[in-house]
């Protein structure tokens, strides 16, 4: 019998080779006994048995093709499928990169701030802001709106300023160094908004 022709063999391949070897050995043994019964010498009997049987390696290879043929087809299909998937992912990445570069180029030509644009793209469309201090219902509120809320709206979300409030609003955004103070009355009158989505951790303190 042949030695394994590939360095990595599945258990199925190994089992098949073992079965074939045992089967062929049994057949050759009986052929050899036949020849001995016909009066052949030991060496001649073995040679004639081998002649009648044919090349065991060739027959084993033919058996392997029969038994493992279907499996090899499945392996080929599996590999082909993975190649198609990899190609699809690769093409998608390539088109996405081209589209990205084009949009960056367009933004540059239109004078759009690329950093702001990137932040708008990658940041969550929702923000959160903690409203605390002299408000009726202090807490953290989601600002899940398509555009930034005004100062007055944020205070209103927290139930409005308490009676003893000084009417001063301190704000500090978590995603920037910007912070400041504004009069609630002015903010209401001017409909001041923050012109950005407050990132999680942003704080609005009503004094």
């Amino acid at each position, binding site marked *: 019998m042949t030695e394994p022709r590939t360095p990595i063999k599945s258990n199925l391949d190994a089992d098949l080779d073992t079965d074939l070897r045992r089967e062929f050995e049994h057949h050759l043994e009986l052929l050899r006994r036949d020849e001995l019964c016909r009066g052949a010498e030991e060496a001649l009997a073995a040679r004639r048995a081998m002649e009648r049987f044919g090349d*065991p390696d060739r027959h084993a290879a033919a058996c392997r093709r029969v038994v493992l043929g279907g499996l090899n087809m499945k392996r080929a299909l599996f590999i082909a499928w993975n190649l198609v998937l990899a190609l699809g992912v690769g093409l998608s990445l390539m088109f996405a990169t081209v589209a990205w570069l084009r949009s960056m180029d367009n933004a540059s030509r239109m004078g759009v701030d690329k950093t702001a644009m990137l932040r708008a793209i990658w940041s969550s469309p929702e923000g959160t802001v903690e409203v605390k201090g002299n408000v009726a219902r202090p807490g953290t509120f989601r600002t899940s709106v398509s555009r930034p809320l005004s100062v007055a709206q944020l205070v209103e979300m927290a139930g409005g300023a308490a009676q003893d409030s000084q009417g001063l609003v301190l704000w500090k955004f978590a995603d920037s160094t910007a912070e400041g103070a504004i009069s609630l009355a002015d903010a209401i009158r001017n409909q001041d908004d923050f012109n950005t989505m407050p990132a999680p951790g942003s704080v609005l303190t009503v004094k």
Partner: protein
Amino acid sequence: MASDAPSSPQASGVLQGTLDTIILRILDTDGPLHGYGIARRIEQASGERLKIEEGSLYPALRRVEKRGDAKAEWRQSETGREARFYAITPPGRKRLREATASWASISGVVNDILGVTSQRRVKGAGA
């Protein structure tokens, strides 16, 4: 199959698939046999006219087994050694019936085309 390893004129003359049918026929009539036993039965049944490399039986046996026409199991043989015995299955019997009918039909057509039957008739009439 002989086509896997044709080594003699007789072997190469065995039509593709015919060996599978012969194997099924032998298993059907003689019951479970190992490869050597099948080879002996082919030899006997053909009057030693059909000689094949006996090893070429094994790809045919594996093919028949893979199709589900036969099942195989290791059993102790007459020599006391373990041998792989093949037995025909119900689907194998069905395939054997179909293949036998198909063979009868095809061989009849081929005989007609080759004039084998008519030549015999003429010879018979002349005698």
